């Protein structure tokens, strides 16, 4: 029982040292995907260390608190991977190293607490923490090209805790028109940010197929599979604005 624990502590020590790398390298600018993958690597070591240190006599009854901790730890690790451009942790080496140590602590806790709860469960809960980081690498903080303009015109008033600094921080070009904002928010997902068509048809040169009045009528009473936004989501003024915008595509 002692040898796995020693190996586990060594692995944990290595993981903590790697977590402190930003202290040596200064500010590290990495794409979000690579950053998450490095977090996943940290979590592999931390979770393994937790499992090795957490092994216990299977016959003893464990406290239910262990399983709760084991399940919550991966979630805390995910929160520490918060990919904000304004995060203090991202910009200051000490903060960044602190964040990494937190991720290592969560990974260790996931494996350790799971294993303390029942033999074998630590592998599952530690694996869960690693899997979360791996999955996060492909979408958490990662925007596809088409999503950028949508983010740029997101409605600030709709977001909780939205400070001017955060929202104006997005790469907004010129101030878009009301119709363009509605289009980006409600239509671009299917019709493309420039009306090029995605899952929905292209709206390029829509003015050659429908005039303004027909466009308004279509938006107000669309045929499936196009969703009906009026009047639940869009007002009559909104519909007119977005129809006017569509006429310019």
């Amino acid at each position, binding site marked *: 029982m002692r040898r796995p624990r020693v190996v586990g502590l060594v692995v944990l020590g290595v993981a903590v040292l790697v977590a402190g790398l930003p202290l040596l390298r200064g500010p590290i600018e990495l794409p979000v995907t690579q950053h998450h993958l490095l977090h996943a690597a940290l979590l592999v070591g931390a979770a393994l260390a937790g499992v090795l240190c957490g092994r216990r006599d*299977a*016959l003893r*009854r*464990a406290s*239910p608190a262990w*399983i*709760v901790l*084991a*399940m919550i730890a*991966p*979630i805390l690790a*995910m*929160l520490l991977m*918060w*990919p*904000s*451009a*304004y995060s203090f942790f991202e910009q200051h080496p000490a903060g960044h190293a602190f964040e990494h140590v937190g991720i290592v602590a969560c990974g260790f806790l996931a494996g350790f607490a*799971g294993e303390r*709860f*029942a*033999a*074998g*469960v630590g592998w*599952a*809960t530690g694996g*869960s923490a690693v*899997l*979360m980081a791996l*999955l*996060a690498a*492909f*979408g*958490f*903080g*990662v*925007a*596809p090209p088409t*999503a950028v303009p*949508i*983010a740029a015109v*997101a409605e*600030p008033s*709709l*977001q*909780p805790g939205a400070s001017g600094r*955060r*929202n104006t*921080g*997005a790469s907004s070009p010129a101030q878009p028109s009301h119709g363009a904002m509605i289009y980006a*928010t*409600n239509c671009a*997902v299917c019709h493309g940010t420039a009306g090029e068509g*995605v*899952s929905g048809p292209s709206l390029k040169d829509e003015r050659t197929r429908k005039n303004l009045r027909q466009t308004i009528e279509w938006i107000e009473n669309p045929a*499936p599979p196009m969703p*009906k*936004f009026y009047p*639940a*989501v869009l007002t009559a003024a909104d519909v007119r604005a977005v129809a006017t915008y569509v006429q310019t595509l």
Partner: protein
Amino acid sequence: MKPLSVTLPAIGLRVMWTYIATGLAIFLLMLLVGISMRGSQAGWWTIEPGTFYSLLSLHGIGMLTAMVVAGLGTLWYLVSRETGLDARVAYLAYAFFVAGVACVIVSIVPGHYGALWSMLYPLPFTGTYWPTWATGAWLVGTALVMLGFMIWCGQILGALLARYGGLGGVLAVDYVLHNRAFAKLDHEPPPPQIFAAAITAIDGLIAGTAGLTVGVALIVRWLDPTVAIDPLWAKNLTYLFGHTFANLTMYMAVAGIYVGLPICTRRAYHTSVPLVLAWWGTLLFVIIAYFHHLYMDFVQAESLKLVGELASFLAAIPVVVITVYGAVLLVHRSGMRWTLGSMFLFTGLIGWVVGGAAAVLDSTIPFNVDLHNTLWVPAHFHTYLLEGVVLFTLGWVFVNLEQRAGASSGALIRWLAGLGVFGGGALFVLGFYIAGAAGVPRRYAVEPPPGPYLAGIATVGAILVLVGLLVVAYEALRLARLPRSEVAP
């Protein structure tokens, strides 16, 4: 391998009844919500579209949670008969479920959240008509439900690993690969219901991890609007969790067949190599079957669509065929009496087969293009849940009540309950199927013709289900109040 210890039956039963009673109570409430929506689509009364989508959100997550909670209770009890389980963990998981449901209700009732659990990013953040705190309450509520589910999965996995000496023992690897040597050593593979529990725990942990990944990402996006999220990634993870979660309800409930039907027929349901292989198929493929929800997403890789089609077949067909075949052989010439318990268990098999066949049809790419955005999809999952999972759950409840009381129900009650729940349910799903085949779109508060007419038929069916369930509830209470008997019914 002998069990280390087993949980006291009274404790196991208390946990089971707590879970099942909660699940069925939520189910009844959600049925009322469902009737109100179908009646509105039929034009019998009017529900404003915003309210409709809020009710639809509540109905969807509520029904799934109800069935999961009931199924988890059944499985917890069945596993507790094989090995020791700490009831405190079960109640802790239960507390997370209750807290999650409370948050969801808050997000809907005062908050009017209306983007469903299967929302596609940038929903539920843009184009919304509800306050942002409601979105937060919804996201936190669903995360709590997932957390409760994962705690349950962790406990069951740990108990099974200890009981059967590791994952190989739980999944009967030696029994399948070295069958003769296994038999010579006089070893016994785990009973069939243990496979249902193991697959639920393992796939539940994987799906829960995916669900919490996207759930936490959405909570972060809610708190910090500058955080980007890839919509395709979000959709993949949402359905990885949601589709698996919904499918697992059946695999939980089917444990009632493996234990309940043998009680009714006085025959044993043995573990066999084909049964184990079928469950292996489910274990591997149910996680990736969800790709059939993304056939129409052109940015999704084509290869994944083919994987999704194959996985949909392999996850569902083998285990359905082998379980139903085994069940029919069990009943054949057994002299089984048709009590409410045996009747619900057996008719549940019909719902499982029909709902499963409709699902397989929808997961076949050429059909999916025509069916997936129509009411065919709710048709299949309502069959699967109402005529499958619910009937299995009711069957299991009544097998237990009948066994405990040493009595069964009269013919009139059986007819009323059967016609109401099964017959009404059949009429209800028929309205969905015909509308789906006619191309009526799903998730529409106001449906184009022939939607309203068919919604009227479906509403009649749903009301019959409600009446049948009231009869069932009355009968369950009557049996529960009878003194305990040692004589089998």
